[in-house]
């Protein structure tokens, strides 16, 4: 936490993207989270990803609920649309916004409390409806704003800062998302931007519900021995299944890889994800195998990270609802008031 705003001065050779913006143009107000909070690193990763994708800031909407995590949209994308909703209700508001204007990039930002406790139902339904969004969970396993009680994602047997042992089973949002049919599921770590930034970029370009569960140590209440979400623990138990090395939009990749070491995934818009395998027998295209693998590794005490599952050709809510192609605010009177004859036709079809 800092009282001073980040100085406007920047590195004299700070690169610009295709829109002429620097990375700094994607930042927001200065963070008021605790010094060292993992969430600030995730904010920085989102800034970097949007900068690298040349996204026009005014075409992004960021929505959040309540909690430390849900404060962060103030600290990134200061020139984008934002909506700070009620506790746990971000998915509903996001779904509504997405239905009204399908042309924006939707970034849902939530935490383990917001998504795994009060908002668990909202989380589940937005995923199973395949809302086209990036759903980022900043997962620290504690309620930081109320001084560090266990949250629903805290592992059974892990210890609080005061030594209390968690006796409840943990909710695994990644496992739930896979089971509920999310078409893009990833897990990452706030302390590893090299892994996180490409994942966010891929999730933004993905059509359908994309969940990124980011383990984000709470330096104030959950970074001690006995915690399973501390910097040290995550670094010691991190099992990355793959590295998303390249994200090249609509251009073939000319780099030679030994057969079987890299896998290319072409998404619906033609963008190509290139995954460098770190794990011989991991296949991010196989949902059931992924679920099994995650269960096995979790039982062995490992935290599996990387792009865990992707269905590159997935559809989304607009497709299943057969909505109009244009955003609602772009429809004119002719489309909105089709006339008595059209109404008669609809009524007739219901008889």
């Amino acid at each position, binding site marked *: 936490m800092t009282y001073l705003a*980040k100085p406007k*001065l920047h*590195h004299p050779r700070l690169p610009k993207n295709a829109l002429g913006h620097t990375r700094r143009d994607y930042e927001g107000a200065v963070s008021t989270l605790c010094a*060292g909070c993992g969430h600030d690193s995730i904010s920085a990763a989102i800034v970097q990803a949007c900068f690298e994708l040349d996204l026009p800031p005014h075409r992004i909407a960021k929505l959040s609920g309540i909690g430390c995590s849900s404060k962060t949209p103030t600290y990134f994308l200061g020139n984008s649309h934002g909506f700070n909703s009620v506790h746990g209700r971000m998915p509903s508001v996001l779904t509504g916004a997405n239905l009204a204007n399908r042309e924006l990039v939707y970034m849902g930002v939530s935490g383990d409390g917001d998504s795994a406790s009060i908002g668990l139902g909202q989380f589940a339904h937005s995923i199973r409806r395949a809302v086209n969004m990036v759903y980022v969970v900043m997962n620290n396993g504690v309620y930081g704003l109320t001084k560090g009680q266990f949250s629903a994602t805290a592992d059974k047997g892990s210890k609080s800062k005061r030594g209390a042992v968690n006796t409840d089973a943990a909710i695994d949002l990644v496992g739930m998302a896979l089971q509920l049919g999310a078409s893009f599921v990833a897990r990452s770590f706030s302390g590893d931007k090299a892994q996180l930034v490409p994942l966010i970029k891929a999730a933004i370009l993905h059509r359908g519900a994309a969940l990124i569960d980011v383990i984000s140590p709470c*330096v104030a209440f959950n970074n001690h021995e006995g915690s399973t979400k501390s910097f*040290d623990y995550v*670094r010691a138990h991190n099992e990355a299944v793959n590295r998303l090395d390249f994200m090249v939009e609509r251009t073939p990749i000319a780099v030679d890889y030994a057969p079987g070491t890299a896998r290319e995934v072409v998404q619906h818009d033609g963008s190509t994800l290139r995954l460098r395998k770190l794990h011989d027998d991991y296949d991010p295209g196989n949902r059931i195998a992924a679920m099994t693998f995650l269960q096995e590794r979790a039982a062995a005490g490992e935290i599996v990270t990387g792009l865990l599952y992707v269905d590159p050709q997935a559809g989304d809510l607009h497709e299943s609802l057969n909505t109009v192609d244009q955003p609602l605010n772009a429809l004119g009177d002719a489309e909105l008031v089709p006339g008595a004859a059209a109404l008669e036709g609809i009524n007739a079809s219901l008889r």
Partner: protein
Amino acid sequence: MNPTDIGNPDYFHKVVDCQWACPSHTPVPEYIRLIAAGRYTDSYLVNWRSNVFPGVLGRTCDRPCEPACRRGRVEKEAVAICRLKRVAADFKDDVRARLPTAPKQKNGKRVACIGAGPASLTVARDLMPHGYRVVVYDQDPFAGGMIRTQIPRFRLPESVIDEEIGYVLDMGVETRFGTRIDSLKGILAEGYDAVFVGCGAPRGKDLEIPGRREAAARIHIGIDWLASVSFGHVSSIGKRVIVLGGGNTAMDCCRTARRLGGEDVKVIVRSGFEEMKASPWEKEDAIAEDIPILNYLVPKSISHHDGRLTGVWFEQVRAEYDAKSRRQLVPTGEPDRHFECDDVLVAIGQENAFPWIERDLGIEFDRWGLPVLDATTLQSIHPRVFFGGDAAFGPKNIIWAVAHGHEAAISIDRLCHGEDVRERPAPMVNLVSQKMGIHEWSYDNEISAEKRYRVHHAEKRVALKDVKLEVELGFDRKQAYLEAQRCLNCDVQTVFNAKLCIECDACVDICPMDCINFTRNGAEEDLRQRLIAPAVNLAQDLYVSGALKTGRVMAKDEDVCLHCGLCAERCPTGAWDMQKFRIDMTHAGPACRSRERSRALTTS
């Protein structure tokens, strides 16, 4: 890379670019903070300790600090360091009670200083408080040397010179002014323990071209003419004046000529405008006084009629560079150009001249006529004779003369105490945390967005009428405060403690300049390229930690760090801290003597 050794005083000293660039290592950020705090007297004394003539230098310094200033690398212009120094001098209270005095009990050592310029006066100031008897000789009736004779009064009022020279002479320096020294042998025969030669580079170069002799009456050597104006022997000049030469002396000549009746004054230089030796701001000031600067014109002959100067012929040239990028001026082949004039001022350089030093004393001279010296100790081949200022390595400037004075005084002090002159004293170094609270530092860490302030000038109409009227008005207190706040406080260092770091990336994310990196170690060239913002300024160091828990290292590019302290504010473990680095160069006195230093260390 190996972890950076911040225990080496040079490491953090280099980060304070201005102080490192200053020949006498003035603690610039320290005195600028004192100005911002309104503590002008304290600021003046910080200056006075290092550079002896803050009021003079605040108006006339060549400012090696300003091109070095980090602010100039993060935005358009450097902090106006030089003019802030003048602020301290302008607004200070009476400092006399706080200056050192000479003890009544002398140490029995006698030192002669030849020439009463800045180098000699620095030697006197450094030695007097330690009981030396210092005798200063000068051919002029007043002390000051080139400060008094060559710098025009409209840039440097006499009162400022008198005041600051007075601080030195009033310590009880013996003066032999108005006497020309004809023999160093004679001086040495007087039994001095050491002789310091600080007689400057007193001979202005002349121009050997046809017509020079015939029209001699209206052709003047720049520095001699400036001295004559200074002492009131000359008070007018013709309406049309040509100044030959492109250095600061040429700028002083042309601006003085404008004030003595010159209406059509031109500066004509051989080189291109950009390569001129004059400081950019002095060129600007001359141009602002309606003095055109014409370049690539080499004087060929003087035109005259009936023994009267009528003008100067010039050959037109262009610059060509050979394979070793040495410049040559090649004639363009275009017809020569003629400029009419009533007077010519020749300011094409200065030379050293030591006709009064006998060649059989054991002092050797090189082929440029300069004494053979040890570059650090300034000792000549004759162990009791030292040189400094322009007399040592040819014409430089006041701040170099002061720096030489300090070094020579150390050499003399050690010589007089039977110690090896070549062994030099270490500086006094101190590094202290500036943390006052969670978000509170003992310095203003908010980065000011102000652009560099311009010093107001007297109205041209009035200024050009009076050669003694100071042109620059100096900053007022408010401007001084705002300009002072532009300083980045580079002496408040980012100090990293690898043992405390948990690699949370908070500092990387908050750093506005992308200085901080956590990455795998490598050779310096490799590491420099791999940083978030590649470190291409090789003059600036990388600050590298030992291995962290993940095996990576912290690597910080010092180049454009704002010293805003946000890394330290964001650090959850205090691995980053902002610590003020103070480095005081050791001057002559007990602290520069090895035996007394080691005694002090063993008893403390």
